[in-house]
């Protein structure tokens, strides 16, 4: 059913701006969502992601800019005449209609023949695995089932794109994980373009082909999960997606394209830097899972970074253990280690070395002026 049409654009936003009174909800957003992709908009509450979604649906009109559906300008077209459908945050199922009537609602309005409505609704209920519930009322279904009805009701219309507004927010953690997989399965099965709004970075990473990170009405970065996680374009993206250790350091020495900071005997921080010069202040970031912990007695290894410290706190988190280490440069660094015999041995007060590879660290933009807590 899904022919790869990666080149075609399902939804395009061109310089879209939206203001509510004195508050600018969306400023100058330009983005293209490709046909068939799972596209997420991720950001804290109030970042403009929901407004952007509602602009696509037509519930809000942009103050400036254009919205294109499959290349056609739909700015000003009311929501009932746009070929996109939405899954609402609290599902918005019609309480006075059965599951079947809910799902058939859009088709009936399009005056699809009765026989076809019946067939398509049943097919779609099968896709979302709700066979046999068509006579029930939404109030008689569990949260997860209601979620599936909402999906079916939107997808049965074969929209250009399916817009989902934090659809899993009301579910408990376990069900949420299950539904993430379900959503992805359905999306692959039908090949429909999904535009997914969430504030949960894990959710976005788990499902998306591409993620747009939004902050303050701006898109900070668009990229695959790996890109935004490993090569965040801005400090905000780096901080919002995943946990991050930030180190403000001064370059002591440059070896080729590697900047080196000596922080003590046997201790140093290295990072790839194209045009750093000795004396520059840099803000360096390292993900906790990239930092390994060695006992003090361990031999000096490799060319990576190595930083001494004392374990301040140990938190056991199931699959891994979180270590908070007060380093010799005065910054508390967090390290995540998968649990094994070695992690079991470490406890608060232990003297340790933290180490990470050259490519595990990256430089955050715009740190030159603000750094300074490192002597």
């Amino acid at each position: 059913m899904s022919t790869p049409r990666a080149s075609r654009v399902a939804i395009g936003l061109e310089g879209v701006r939206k203001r509510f009174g004195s508050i600018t909800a969306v400023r100058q957003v330009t983005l293209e969502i490709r046909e068939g992709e799972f596209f997420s908009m991720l950001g804290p509450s109030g970042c403009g992601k929901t407004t952007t979604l509602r602009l696509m649906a037509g519930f809000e009109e942009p103050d400036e800019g254009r919205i294109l559906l499959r290349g056609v300008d739909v700015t000003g077209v009311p929501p009932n005449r746009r070929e996109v459908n939405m899954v609402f945050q609290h599902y918005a199922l019609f309480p006075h209609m059965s599951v079947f009537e809910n799902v058939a609602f859009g088709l009936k309005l399009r005056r699809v023949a009765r026989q076809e409505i019946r067939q398509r609704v049943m097919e779609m209920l099968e896709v979302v695995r709700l066979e046999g519930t068509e006579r029930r009322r939404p109030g008689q279904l569990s949260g997860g089932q209601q979620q599936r009805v909402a999906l079916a009701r939107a997808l049965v219309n074969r929209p250009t794109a399916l817009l989902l507004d934090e659809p899993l927010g009301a579910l408990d953690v376990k069900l949420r994980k299950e539904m993430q997989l379900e959503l992805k399965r359905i999306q692959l099965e039908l090949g429909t373009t999904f535009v997914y709004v969430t504030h949960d970075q894990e959710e976005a990473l788990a499902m998306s082909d591409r993620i747009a990170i939004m902050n303050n009405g701006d898109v900070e970065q668009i990229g695959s999960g790996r890109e935004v996680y490993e090569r965040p374009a801005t400090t905000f993206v780096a901080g919002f997606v995943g946990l991050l250790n930030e180190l403000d350091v001064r370059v002591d020495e440059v070896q080729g394209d590697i900047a080196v900071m000596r922080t003590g005997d046997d201790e140093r921080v290295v990072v790839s830097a194209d045009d750093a010069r000795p004396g520059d202040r840099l803000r360096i970031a390292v993900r906790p899972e990239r930092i390994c912990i060695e006992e003090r007695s361990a031999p000096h290894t490799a060319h990576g970074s190595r930083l001494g410290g004392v374990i301040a706190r140990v938190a056991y988190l199931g699959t891994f253990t979180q270590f908070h280490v007060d380093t010799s440069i005065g910054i508390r660094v967090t390290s995540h280690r998968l649990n094994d015999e070695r992690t079991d041995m470490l406890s608060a007060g232990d003297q340790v070395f933290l180490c990470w590879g050259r490519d595990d660290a990256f430089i955050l933009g715009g740190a030159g002026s603000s750094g300074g807590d490192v002597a």
Partner: protein
Amino acid sequence: MTDVAISRRGLRVLKACFGLLLLFLYAPILIMAVFSFNDSITVTFPLSGFTLRWYREFLSNGELMVALRASAIVAATSSAIAVALGISAAVALVRKRFFGKGAVSGLLLAPLVIPYLILGISLLILFNAAAIPLSILTIATGHVVISVPYTVLVLVPRLERVSVSLEEAARDLGASGPRTFRSVTFPLILPAVISAFLVAFTLSFDEVVVASFLAGDQVTFPVYLYSQLRFPTRLPQVIALAVAVMAVSGFVVIGAEIGRRIADRRLATQLASAGTPETRGIP
């Protein structure tokens, strides 16, 4: 926002409907106000000059003043009793679990949907059968029956908004049941108690049907008014009185509403700062 409920033209039409309805509702009152200052014994056009005579006259009408006083007594007594009954019933309905809750609330709210005429004659028969002479006290007795449902309806939602955990905290800190009610629950529902009293008071002050059946020699203000209206001899005076009463009750209503708003907002902030479950976020 693209309004999914009303189009721009629809909004204009509905606004016009609303305006027309307000005109329909307020025009008669305005006409009354105009004629209350009209210097003529008949209420007819053309108008014949400004006067305050009718206001002076009703103020010096002894019979009327006595009726007003009787109404005030009836209203104050009946609403005090109704509020007391309402509070204890509301606390039981909201805080306690017991068998037959539906039936109890049904009984307490039933007078709301029973025509007052039936309540009036049934109490008339009761007092006659028990050989209790009719007086303003029998009227007050009847007005309590009418007012109880309203006090329950005003108090229950407010009580529901006061989190049980506040009372549990007080109990936990050593307060007895009555003490908890006095120093935690009651202060928090006080605004509702006041508005329940006001609702019951206005209800009783304006009630004519039950009062007509249960009045002895001393009639209340609405009963007096009713007799004046059936056989109008002093119409301009009654109109002036009507305008005065409407103005006063208008102020009371608006004042009570503003007060309730302020109190509600205060409760909301109090509850928010107390961190009751409904406002507490996910940890």
